[in-house]
């Protein structure tokens, strides 16, 4: 499946949901906020929200440095 993630085209192997995508991108557990096709998702929706070919996903993850 092809997605546009943070502006870049990305081939996804396994992930079928937002939650699985975050795991695949190694962003699970980092408080990530996700917009799917310009619609912001509540974290409680990450597990059930399914991805489709061509979806535009924007992800902001949190870091601790400074």
């Amino acid at each position, binding site marked *: 499946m092809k997605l546009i993630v*943070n*502006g*870049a085209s990305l081939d996804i192997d396994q992930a079928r949901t937002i939650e699985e995508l975050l795991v695949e991108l*190694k962003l699970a*557990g*980092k*408080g990530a*906020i996700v*917009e799917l096709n310009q619609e*912001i998702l*509540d*974290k409680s929706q990450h597990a059930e929200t399914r991805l489709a070919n061509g979806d535009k996903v*924007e992800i*902001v*993850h*949190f*870091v*601790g*440095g*400074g």
Partner: protein
Amino acid sequence: MNDRYSRQILFEPIGEEGQDQLSDKHVVIIGAGALGTGNAEILARAGVGRITIADRDYVEWSNLQRQQLFSEEDAKYRMPKAVAARERLEQVNSDIHVESLVLDAGVEELRELAEFADLLIDATDNFDTRLLINDISQERKIPWIYGACVGSYGLSYVILPGETPCLSCLLEKVPMGGATCDTAGIIAPVVQMVVAHQTAEALKLLTGNTTSLRNKLVSFDMWNNHYLAMDVQKLKKADCPSCGEHAHYPHLDPENQTKTAVLCGRNTVQIRPSEKGERDLEELSLSLSRLGGRIEQNPYLLSYSSDEEQRLVFFKDGRVLIHGTKDITEAKNLYYSLIG
């Protein structure tokens, strides 16, 4: 009166009136590392009347690449960062009042710092302190500006009590582990980008130009050329324990704080994170392996030492033992530099 601020006064949204407002304001900057020194220099030059900068650490050579108020002398003499920052700021602008505090910002310290503050600026290096700042900000109704960076990635967000979502709304759960500047490195331009976003919003807030506030969570990767501004207003939670209708500021509760203890007779400090959860030892092993040093691992714990003096043992339940020190501040510095 010299024309120190003339170009800023010429800028119409600030003007004479805005400049007067700045001179009456008190900004507290928590942390005097890369973000702290960057924020402090811009706000001091801008003429914020009172700046307090707090930090528990001292200057090291590895700071000089990006921590803009420090000199080689400061690194040689291991000057406390807050003090070295104040001395430089006083050279930059002697018209304002700068106060430095060498301390570890816990609940009581932050409450005192926030007492007469108009704005809190986050320049810390860990989530624990940020969540304390978040709850103090909600308790005292003082805005704060989150900023963070690692590698070539940075982000920032302005939190206005009663208006925007707070950090607890956005995070929900404290991230455990993750990259830090000491494990994944950091380039100075991304620091400056975060500082630019934090200070631009600070100037708007302090001069009452609130309609110009960005109101978006911004993030950027300056190596991979991506920039994002996300409207997160919808994530404000009515039942948020920090900012919701029945807010009780959980991170200020002694029960929920990261606990440190010196283990008697063992030259060891134990750090127990506030958030219950399992530490991902595999991920940790991967990130520490880039630093060199020795890693030993079994299914229950991971032991890491970079030199002969100190060894850190990370348990799966989140606890960390730091062998080779009785000094809690030194132990925390090491802990947050590796864990974030």
